[in-house]
Structure formats: C-alpha cells, structure tokens
C-alpha cells in the first residue's frame, strides 16, 4: 500500500514535502502500525507520536487523507490508497508528524480548566460528597462532552483557529462548558464571562468540522452553542 507522508526536518528542510513509502499492509493493520512498519523497514528517521495505542490518550492524532484521526484506531482497510498522512494543522511542526501542542494547551489553560466548587453548597453538609447520578439530567447535560481526550483533532480541523489568532478553539471551549454545566461548580457565571470575550464563543462560526473530526464523538459545537445561549448561566 502506497503511503505519502508529509515530512519536515527543520534542521535540513526549507519546507515540508511529501515522501513516498510502500507498506507491506496486513489485515487489520492500523495507520499507526503502518508508520511503525515504515520506521522499521524504510525510514528510521520518521517522527511521530504515540502512547497508549488504544485510542485513549490522543497522542497519535494526525491528518489522514485530509481528515483528523487517531492513527492507532484508523484501519488501513477503511482508507483509499495512496494514503496521505500529515501532521495536525494550525500547530508548529517539530518534526514530520510531531507537532508542538503548546499553543493548543495554552488555549486550554486560558479557560481555567479546573473544577471550582464547594460540595457543601450542594449537599448542605461539609464532608459529604456532591453526587451527580449517572442517570440524572445534570449528568445528561455533559454526558457527550466529558469524554474529550485533548487530542487536538478539533483544533486542527477548525478553520477559525487557522484564521483567528486569538480564538480559544473548540476543545478549550468544550472544557469550559463541561465545567460551567457541572451542577456542583460555583464558578459558572464567571466561567461563561471568561469565554464570552474576544476569541471566545462568539468567534465560532458554527462550521461543524470539529464535530466531524472528533475521534471520540464529543460535540464541541454543542458546548459552544450552549455557552453562547448562556444555558449554563445560573
């Protein structure tokens, strides 16, 4: 199977270029398996990230045939050859398929992505845990959104991220929503205000590519819409 990988070595190359490889594809092989095959048999210098190899960590997020995906979960049989593999978009390239995730996590940090709460405010009793039942409406508000693995696929797919330097991006805004919608949280109003300024929820143009790109079926656009509607403004 022909693979064309967008490679770039900042030490030697002026700009990224396609490199062609022929992979001895086997049944049920994933894109990550193919990259390992290339590393072992054709190009020992190929750079790419991976960690869990089980679709849980998000480290191997990259662009395959134009779409963001987790390389460990995407099977070759689902792809049309030649397979084009590129690094995530809108992020500086360190080498080949490895990108600098710092800008992505900077936007994440900008929304204060940590729980701010006082259980006693909900339970009326200091020391008692504030419980949100899994079958409750409160859980339902964030059910789909809480599974984000911070892989950066939505950030890469979003054209507003590419064109608006200060935009927080779908992942960060999704995180803001998950926290603001948490009934145990006490920073809801402040959090909504934090993401309502320049580069916040109103910069989103409802493109929807983030929803299509997410490999774990999170709907960042829904989070942004709800933040915009102030649905979590309590």
């Amino acid at each position: 199977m022909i693979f064309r990988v967008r490679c770039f070595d900042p030490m030697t190359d002026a700009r990224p270029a396609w490199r062609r490889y022929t992979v001895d594809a086997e049944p049920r092989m994933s894109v990550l398996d193919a990259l390992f095959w290339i590393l072992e048999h054709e190009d020992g210098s190929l750079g790419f990230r991976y960690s869990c190899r089980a679709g849980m960590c998000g480290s191997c997020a990259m662009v395959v045939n134009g779409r963001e995906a987790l390389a460990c979960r995407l099977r070759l049989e689902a792809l049309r050859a030649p397979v084009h593999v590129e690094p995530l978009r809108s992020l500086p390239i360190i080498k080949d398929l490895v990108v600098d995730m710092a800008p992505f996590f900077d936007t994440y940090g900008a929304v204060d992505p940590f729980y701010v709460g006082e259980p006693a405010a909900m339970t009326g009793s200091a020391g008692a845990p504030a419980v949100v039942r899994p079958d409750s409406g409160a859980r339902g508000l964030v059910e789909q959104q809480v599974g984000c693995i911070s892989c950066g696929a939505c950030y890469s797919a979003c054209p507003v991220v590419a064109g608006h330097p200060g935009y927080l991006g779908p992942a960060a805004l999704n995180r803001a929503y998950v926290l603001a919608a948490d009934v145990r949280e006490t920073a809801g109003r402040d959090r909504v205000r934090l993401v309502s300024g320049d580069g916040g929820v109103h910069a989103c143009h409802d493109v929807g590519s983030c929803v299509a790109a997410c490999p774990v079926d999170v709907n960042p656009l829904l989070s942004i819409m709800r933040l915009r509607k102030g649905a979590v403004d309590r």
Partner: protein
Amino acid sequence: MVAFAFGHLFMMHYQRAPSATGAAFVAGRWAGPAWRAFDGVLLLLALTHGVAGAHGALRSRVRPGVSRAALDGAFAVGLGAFACLGVWAVLAGPRAPGSAPGPLSGATWIPAALLAGLAALAALTYAAGLAAAGVLCARILRRLPLGRWVYPGQWAFALSRLAGVGVLGFLLIHILDVALVPLAPDLYDRTVTGYATPFLVPMEVALVAAVVYHALNGLRLTTLEALDIRAARAHTPLFVLVLVLTALLVLPSLAVLLASRR
C-alpha cells in the same frame, strides 16, 4: 432582514430584469413613503450586517492597540458615510418631472468609474473562480488531499464568507449608483443599463445566488442553534438543502435575465 432582502430581490430580479429599474422605475416606486421606508430600512439592515461581518472577520487578524483602533475607526467612518449617503438618497428621492438636470448630470465619468470598478471586480472574480476550480480539479485528479475541504462545514463557511463579501461589495457600489437618482437621473440610467453588459451578466446571476445562499445559510445556522443536541446530524443535510434551494431559486432570475436580452 431576510424578508426585506428577499422582497427587494424579488422585485428587482424576478418581477423584472435589473436593467429595467431605471430612474423612472425608482421615481414610481418612491412616489409614496412606504417603499422609501422599505428601502431605507433594508439599506441600514444590510449595510450594518455586511460591515459588521467584514469588520469582525478582519479585526481578529489585527493586533490589539493602534492598528485595531485604526481599523475600527475606518470601518466606523465608512459605515457612517455610506449610511448617510444612502439614507439621504432615499429621503431626497427622485427629481420632479420636468425639473432641471441634476447637479451631477455632466459628470459622465461617474457611471464609467462605477462600471469600470464593477468590471474589474468581475474580472477578479472570474479569474479567482477559474483558478480555484483548477486547483481543486488538479488535486482531485492527482489524488492529493483537499485539506479542510473534506468537511462540508468548511464549504458552507467559505461560501457564506465569499457570498457576504460579494454582496457587501455590490451594496457599496449600489449605494453610490442610487445616490445618482436625485443628483443625475440620466447618469443613473446609464449605469443601470451598463450592468446588462454581457461581461457583467454572470455577476448579476452570482449576486442573486450570493444573496439567496447567504440568507438561507444564516437561517440554517439559526435552525441548528435551536436544534441543540440534534444539530450534529442535521449539519450536512441542511447544507445540502441550502445548496439545492439556492440553485432552484436562482433559476427564475436567470430566466428573467435571459428573456430581457432577447
């Protein structure tokens, strides 16, 4: 605004061809206050919406500080100037029948400049469109990835932006040409007749398509906001519906345009 825009579009591109909307037509339409109020409200709504959109798109790319303040100022001045000119033209209305030629009737360079500007915009649009189509076809034939264009939402977003920019550009020229109605109705007629030049006819069709698409896409986004969690599945089908409706709604205006040229 959608209702006002579609109403105006219907009267100017479906009931009759644009070349039949000379100074006499405007005079008849503006004989009473209702249509003047309609046109005035449409002008302010469309101009504000268009300028806000263009300003928002550019502002995000400019650093905060002096540059952004200058951009904000330029847009504010531009909006104010065009709004004042447009409202003045509506309020001043057409010249009384039999009255002396308007104060600018001798300025024949004005319609020439407007038409030249439109022709330049048309040339740029045609060239850019052909170039984009060529690049897209080449990438498809060479089996190269299409980047973010694999996502339907990217197309919806880009087409809406292009349509918005195109309609705003035309609106600014339109405000200038309608200002000729009280100042030089003969030059207004010359300008409107010039719009029917064969080279500009595709732009007339594109204008109708741009207004229709931009409005329908806006309604699509409003609908998606209302659908909330069900919006995820509706994104692409609604986009396809918008494209189909746009194509269907453009056809009658094209028929009127072609019939007027016979």
